[in-house]
């Protein structure tokens, strides 16, 4: 974002400025920090079982087939969201949409890089902060590192990914990001107490 040109009147060669939602927002409490993560490339990938191998090859990682799991490689993560559905997030600047475009096996790949916002919740109290509005069991036994789930936070839908023992990535739709961020901030405040 920082490197994006601040020009708003475009010519054929300049590009409009990218203005992500919540840019720069952070909230801290004892034992937990809530931060907005930088933009990433994302696709919603839908495919039947028979196409999984070809798509895995094109994406450079093995699409997970087990509920509540994810697979990660080289800055790219595929989250199992359903029997034929994955959320693929690329934080390395590569475009998974382009990678899938060449796959002839049956699938649907739709770009949603701008649809979602990612928020990181990190610290010993991260679990409690998220549990302020998310009914899932987030203990390491039930939700280990790499676990992923489409779930809720209060009245908003989120996709939750555990990235480390004490770190989570919360994905939500752009217009819900203010609500989700504020909710997590309140949850963090309570989790600290």
């Amino acid at each position: 974002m920082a490197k994006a040109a601040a020009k708003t009147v475009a010519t054929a060669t300049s590009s409009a400025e990218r203005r992500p939602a919540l840019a720069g927002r952070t909230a801290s409490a004892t034992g937990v920090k809530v931060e907005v993560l930088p933009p990433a490339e994302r696709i919603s990938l839908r495919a039947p079982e028979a196409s999984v191998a070809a798509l895995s090859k094109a994406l450079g990682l093995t699409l997970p087939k087990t509920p509540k799991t994810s697979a990660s490689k080289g800055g790219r993560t595929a989250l199992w969201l359903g029997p034929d559905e994955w959320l693929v997030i690329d934080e390395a600047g590569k475009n998974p949409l382009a990678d899938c475009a060449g796959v002839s096996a049956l699938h649907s790949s739709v770009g949603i890089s701008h649809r979602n916002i990612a928020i990181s919740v990190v610290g010993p109290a991260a679990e409690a902060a998220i549990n302020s509005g998310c009914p899932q069991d987030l203990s390491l036994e039930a939700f280990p590192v790499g676990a992923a789930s489409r779930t809720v936070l209060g009245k908003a839908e989120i996709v939750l990914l555990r990235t480390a023992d004490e770190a989570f990535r919360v994905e939500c739709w752009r217009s819900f990001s203010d609500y989700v961020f504020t909710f997590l901030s309140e949850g963090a405040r309570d989790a600290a107490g």
Partner: protein
Amino acid sequence: MSGALRIPGAGRLSQAKTARFSFDGQSYTGIEGDTLASALLANGVHLVGRSFKYHRPRGILSAGAEEPNALVQIVRDDARKTPNVRATVQELYDGLAANSQNRWPSLSFDVGAVNDLASPLFSAGFYYKTFMWPKAAWKSLYEPKIREAAGLGVSPERPDPDHYSSRYAHCDVLVLGGGAAGITAALAAAETGVRVILADEQAEFGGSLRFESGARIDGQDGFAWAQAAIARLSAMDNVRVLPRTTAFGYYAQNFVGLVERVSDHLKAPGHDLPRERLWQVRARRVVLASGAIERHMVFANNDRPGVMLAGAARTFLNHYGVAVGRNVGVYTANDSAYGAAIDLKKAGVNVAAIVDLRDNPSGPVVDEARALGIEINFGRAVIRAGGKLRVSSMTVQPKNGGGERTIAVDAILMSAGWTPSVHLFSQSRGKVAFNDETKRFVPGAYAQDCVSVGACNGTDGLSATVDEAYAAGAKAAKDAGAKAAKGVKPKVDASESWSRGMLGAAPGAGPDTTVKAFVDFQNDVTAKDIRQAVHEGMRSIEHVKRFTTNGMATDQGKTSNMHGLAIAAETLGKPIPEVGLTTFRAPYTPVTFGAIISHARGPLFDPTRKTAIHPWAAAQGAVFEDVGQWKRAWYFPKAGEDMHAAVDRECVGVRSQAGLFDASTLGKIEVVGPDAARFMELLYTNPWEKLEPGRCRYGIMLREDGFIYDDGVVGRLAPDRFHVTTTTGGAPRVMNHMEDYLQTEFPHLNVWLTSITEQWAVIAVQGPKSRDIIAPLVEGIDMSDEALPHMSVREGKICGVPTRLFRMSFTGERGFEVNVPADYGQAVWEALWAEGQKHGATAYGTEAMHVLRAEKGYIIVGQDTDGTVTPNDAGLDWAVGKKKTDFVGIRGLTRPDLVAKGRKQLVGLKTKDAKVVLEEGAQIVEDPKQAIPMKMIGHVTSSYWSQNCGRSIALALVAGGRDRMGDTLFVPMPDGVIEVEVTGMVFFDETGGRLNG
């Protein structure tokens, strides 16, 4: 000095830590660790409230959550006034201010007490009988007066400044209740390593060990053992210990709601601390250790301040070091009250007499009481309490009648026995069973993965309780997946034990009809009320309960239900189980709205959704309107403009030059797969197979019944890819509707749906100058009419970022909708705005959008349709594929009533007086001279002032409307009848030439 009745050396509180507090403006001193009740009693204050109906003076009955009498208002400041706080659970803090309730002008002289004298008027069911006539008086007189008279406490005038939080938690074993049973079960479970949560409503764990002076466990005093055990549990990583936490509701699949009172006991709660925290716990196994609640004796004037439960008096002495009187009487039907008499006597309080309803009790406690020189009267009853604002005597009589004797006392300690607390068990849908021998309901058949231990299970005695609880805790852990326990069961060295007692009215409770022997203190229900209910024909206990309101106060009959049931059963001449037990409902004790709502206040009440372009509109001074959860720019007033002026200017500006509109909230769904067109054919009335990639079509979606469900423009991006738009409000339900059909009706189709509503920001550029504004910013798209005709879509770049550029119009002007990835939305808007300024473009909001589309007769689903409108009704037959053999709703459309003549059809209306703007929703009639109620033939669905047309315009649903073109109809309004002419729906540019203008 922390009260004249504080006994040196008694109790567990540190006398050094005093706390000042006030009650009804009078200052007192208590001790840290006191409840408000114990602190008041220490100062000799028994009179703390007035009863609900009769305004009788009331004192403190209990020492716990079951308290029906001592309800006070706690006032921290203007915004923090909590009514109906039970003084027995409110912990004292320095500076606490409490007021009594339900009295005027003062607690000791209360005008409302006239109700007590007039009580024959207020007998059971009085409100069902008294206020029946005249009917009109109910709303205007009776209800407001009753509400005013009935209210307990005063609401705060300002919003609650505290915050509340919530937490979801999971555990293997959830233990509810932290007495000897709960602690033991928690220890047994925790030692296996499984995740345990232990909750208790009190500030300190221990339950009845607080008063049982005879209990010794593992070589320690029972209460000290409890504290040591809690310290051990708290130190374990797999255990969460929650004091001040009430389990209020037991729901399906071991889902339990608890409320933790986090800061109500603090003098100055830190800003970051919530007042309360709602816990929603899912447990593999639940151990119920909720104990038992002592019952009072039902005799005349048993509600006088100073008459209290024996176990409570013992708690006040043994835990708080407070004597509840200097000369007490004891009235009991079981052994447990002897402990109170013995402990008080040993502490130096005179025990005037023990009155025992039983004929010939014996045992260690009887012997000990006798050895202490306490007078014991067997086979006798206390038939009446004397005194008014404080009990002054008890009148004793042989239980089968005979001479009366009045004994002076300043407190009566009573015990009719103990009722197992099966509330949570019953809420779990477990069935209680009546034990005829011990006369109590105990858990019978279980419905969930839970187990009851200790007093709530009808288990008597500490040894038996610990044995049972330890085994149950270990088994719960094992059932939840634990390996093996490696702990040691606590060893009970000494304990107390009692059971039995009596249910229902004691001899002092009538049968005459003037005696007030209370069954339910909080709702002022007496023994005679229960009898009267039966005499008036109530047979089921549920009817008796509702007729008398027994057990219907906020204490939910914790002390009264069993007595009420027994009296009803006796009057009916039936055994208790045949009369039944009323249902236990959540919450166990009152729960604040704050806790239930927790985070969902202010900005978190509901998500507020804003578009990427919102900041620009806000900076321009736009006025926003709520559309579902979205904030949409409604209009953009310039200095001095009202809404009408702004909207008129915006509407004219779009048609004369151009306008920019933020359409980002439109629902968008990408439909992808080789069967995408087949799927579209099935979901929409229109044909799609032959729509060429790069072209768009206006689609209508029906429900199965043939009525319009949603509409929107759909662009085909590729043979296997459609970009579908929906209405703003319809976006989520259309997605669900499509997904539902795909998964259940058409699972054979290879097609997938992805919501892209938020992927794309959408900027509508409409008006004769629209192409001139867009063209300089676009790369890779030929903008000529030949290459990009109306209703087409192209992918390319704008301002250097990807775009899906639609040529389409919701204004009737040449128009475009520029889709760009959302993060670029504001920058592209600003670029288009800058370009637009060269061409006199205006920004317009949703109101102008509505007017402009109405000028063209374009409908809005949900405004011009209401779920009973077919495509034909809306004049949209052209959008239904005539050759199609299947789509959702095709059979519905052929239903006889949907093809019948005379259906309401969408038409235009022009008022005869062009200046008059109709009211949306106004009814339409053929003949305004009819008698009321007139026959209504339709209603106005959309109505606006159109500056472009120079007159008002309206759309309406009118029966047989299209056959009425040119007819005059009438819209009767409160201040006159408006004459209207039926017209076509297009008011502006009927030929549609401006689409290419």
